[in-house]
């Protein structure tokens, strides 16, 4: 069935949807732990900025929810890596995530009022979508330790919830 002329197109499609322009190789558990921790820390930073800058109650409440949940998840992640004696290892994906987040924060820092609120929430929707894609297609399938895999699976459910929550807030800002 893959001999049809659309196969090339399909192959291109799959390549272009590989999230975060990840390295071709499967990440190791220490790398996965670092990526997951970085992804959480990025959302905490964004939330802190929104709590400081936004005057919109819905947006501030959402940001506080993000800060609280991601801090709880990262505490659990740190407890797990300690227990497993895994040292999180920096890697190209973590670096790419951190770089993109820094640029996004710089962009958000220049905005005010409703423009800030919209940009922050739209980015939260896009960011959670991107991280969910990475969890589903790369991080969860690559994780070899069962406890790490389980933590990532719960993380995916949390992030999917956040994505829906962010979409709900985005709908209210319109």
């Amino acid at each position: 069935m893959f001999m049809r002329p659309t196969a090339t197109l399909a192959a291109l499609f799959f390549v272009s949807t590989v999230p975060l322009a990840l390295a071709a190789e499967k990440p190791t558990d220490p790398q996965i732990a670092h990526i997951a921790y970085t992804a959480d820390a990025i959302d905490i930073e964004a939330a802190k900025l929104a709590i400081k800058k936004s005057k919109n109650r819905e947006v501030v409440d959402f940001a506080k929810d993000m800060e609280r949940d991601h801090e709880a998840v990262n505490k659990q992640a740190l407890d797990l890596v300690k227990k497993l004696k895994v040292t999180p290892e920096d890697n190209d994906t973590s670096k790419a995530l951190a770089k993109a987040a820094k640029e996004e924060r710089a962009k958000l820092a220049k905005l005010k009022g409703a423009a800030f609120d919209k940009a922050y929430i739209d980015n939260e929707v896009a960011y959670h979508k991107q991280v969910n894609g990475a969890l589903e297609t790369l991080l969860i399938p690559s994780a070899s330790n069962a406890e790490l895999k389980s933590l990532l699976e719960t993380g995916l459910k949390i992030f999917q919830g956040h994505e829906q929550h962010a979409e709900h807030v985005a709908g209210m800002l319109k």
Partner: protein
Amino acid sequence: MRPLPLAMALALIASPALSTTIEVTIDKLVFSPASIQAKVGDTIEWTNNDILAHTATVKGGWDVMIPPKSKGKVMLKAAGAVDYFCRFHPNMKGHIEVAP
């Protein structure tokens, strides 16, 4: 054998029981059982085993906070079927059929 009339059947089920508390557990962002049957006056008590705060929220109705590693409860005051969800993680869903 003639089937029991519905009203009588319901009365038989409902009459001996006073208001009860129905337990729902939250584990890894799942309400369990997801669907429950209750009657007016019953209390639903959620036990949250997650490290995250959750809510049990009915759109336009009640809203119960369920802190991490803690409990939350609500007494059912109206009959009818309600869908509830967690405001923080709207992918968490539950359903309650409330008999009069």
